[in-house]
């Protein structure tokens, strides 16, 4: 089966004052049409860098794609020219960012900003583009879209702004939609609305969605597949149900069990916690990056990096899982 978007062994490095640091160390993941891939991990694990690499938005220098490929419908984006990337961005793939206030231009009305995106990629008049923008605002559930299209971003609430961002992102019916923590700045009831909207849009347009989040609850509600990232690597990758019901890697287990439960009954006296923090990338040694925080650390965890291979259930990069110790 060929996938719509396929990331193969991608390596991204940054020049820092500590020398060259590997932000993404050979990651692979893929997403098909109509499917949602959840990318989960703590801050500093490389989730956003993965998204920016796909969009061709890694600041360079200091960043650099040092190896691997990103294939969209077979075309390798790491080799595409800047002009080609500009054609693809917005039309074939689009991104929704975490903070909708800073990603909208404060001096243009939201209708004009959506119309601009439409005119860039489609051969339509300004009037037609503006009418399309109003239709899109209506589609993403903004009440009285005619009036709202003439509003400036500061006149809208956070949830409304995120809807505008989604309207802009889907204006050209992109095949791939990347949502980088799209609800972190929003209240829970509004977050639920945005999640429901993304699911509807996927049903209508058949887009592939890459949802970046640190919340396993969001993964459960939104994702078909999951890639768990840690320190610039994918450490577990499978169908969402498999990862949620049978997490293999100790880090994946930790991420799931450290969420305070909401359902009736079940409640632990103390939450499972993952001690310590994500190590700075320039201090990574030759062993498993998670070893310092892991309760199953043993022998070769300190010397040899585990590979992402299936042991029984689904792929996980862990010596303890490989040796059947957990």
């Amino acid at each position, binding site marked *: 089966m060929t996938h719509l978007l396929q990331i193969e062994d991608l390596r991204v490095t940054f020049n820092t004052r500590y020398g060259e640091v590997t932000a993404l160390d050979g990651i692979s993941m893929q997403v098909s049409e109509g499917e*949602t891939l959840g990318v989960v991990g*703590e*801050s500093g694990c490389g989730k956003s860098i993965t998204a920016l690499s796909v969009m061709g938005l890694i600041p360079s220098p200091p960043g650099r794609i040092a190896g691997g490929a990103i294939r969209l419908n077979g075309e390798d984006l790491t080799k595409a020219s800047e002009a080609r990337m500009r054609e693809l961005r917005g039309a074939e793939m689009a991104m929704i960012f975490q903070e909708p206030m800073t990603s909208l231009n404060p001096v243009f009305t939201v209708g004009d900003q959506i119309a601009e995106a439409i005119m860039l990629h489609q051969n339509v008049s300004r009037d037609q583009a503006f009418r399309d923008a109003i239709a899109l605002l209506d589609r993403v*559930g903004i*009440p009285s879209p005619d009036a709202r299209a003439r509003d400036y971003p500061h006149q809208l*609430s*956070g*949830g*409304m702004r995120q809807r505008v961002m989604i309207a802009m992102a889907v204006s050209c019916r992109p095949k791939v939609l990347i949502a980088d923590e799209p609800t972190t700045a929003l*209240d*829970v*009831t*509004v*977050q*639920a*609305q945005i*999640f*429901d909207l993304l*699911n509807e849009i996927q049903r209508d347009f058949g887009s592939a969605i890459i949802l970046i989040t*640190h*919340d*396993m*609850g*969001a993964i*459960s*509600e*939104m*994702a*078909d597949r999951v890639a768990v990232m840690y320190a610039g690597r994918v450490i577990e990758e499978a*169908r*969402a*149900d498999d990862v*949620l019901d049978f997490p293999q890697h100790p880090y994946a287990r*930790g*991420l*799931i069990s*450290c*969420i*305070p*439960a*909401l*359902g*009736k009954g079940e*409640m632990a006296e*103390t*939450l*499972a*916690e*993952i*001690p310590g*923090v994500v190590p700075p990338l320039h201090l990574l040694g030759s062993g498993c990056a998670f070893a310092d925080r892991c309760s199953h650390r043993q022998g070769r965890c300190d010397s040899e990096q585990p590979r992402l291979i299936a042991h029984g259930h689904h792929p996980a990069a862990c010596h303890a899982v490989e040796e059947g110790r957990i």
Partner: protein
Amino acid sequence: MSALLDVRNLKVRFAMPKPSLFAPQPYLEAVRGVSFTLEKGRALGIVGESGSGKTTAAMATIRLVPAAGGEILFEGDDLLPLDDEAMRARRRDIQLIFQDPYSSLNPRARVVDIVREPMDLMGIGDADSRLQRVKELFDLVGLRPDQLNLFPHQFSGGQRQRISIARALTTNPKLLVCDEPVSALDVAIQAQILNLLARLKRELGLSYLFISHDLGVVRHLCDDVAVMYLGQIVEQASREALFDSPKHPYTQALLAAAPSLARRKSKGYVRPLKLSGDPPSPINPPKGCAFVERCPMAQEVCRREQPVLKACGPSQVACHFAAA
């Protein structure tokens, strides 16, 4: 059991710009008559979305924001009539932990000085005993003694929150007010801090007034919960009652909105209760029930009459249609 903190009909309002020079002063009613009781050794969670007045209510409770009315009884004494000097003495018993572990620590001070400062200000002990106390607190919150002389930027977010907790504990307070203490932290780190807070409550007999928008966090740490909407408490209950059988439609909607591992995309879940729109602005609240614009059960009476908190089974609920 005696009440440590008994807040009655607390009101807070903020002056808004006048539309014209001779117009009457308009006010934004941020907290509109809130009452709650916190027993010794227990934790009361205040839940709500942004703009619900939960932080303002907590800040007014410890007089960091002036109250416009009501009573705040701390161990039986009303705090509101106290003068500044008397209030300062009382603050020894009431300490605060803030949301942002980055902006709440002085970047130019060493953490040993940050944690010691409340004792300096309150004139507790001498230099040696203060340093000794700081070392004890470092140990208590899970920091190492060799970290005493570092600066805040040398710590991660979770460790900084530990420093904030240590600072709050220096004066041996009875009440800790925690304003979203874990919402700026990664989930894995969040669990570390929640476990620390739970342990401190158990070991030191602390009481918490715990502000959060995250129901899971509140459920884990708090014995009682109050749900706020637009400056009022709409439901108040024990943890078990609130989470096992939420009565107010807003509480039910909050529970339905919170992402949960129990809802799977593969199983095609449908959210049982959906809320449209945003929380209303406190500048111009609806006339009847504050929740009326977003409520799936709203009737004519809801637009006319404001519901009051009344007993509904084991819970207190402000809804015309709450069923026990």
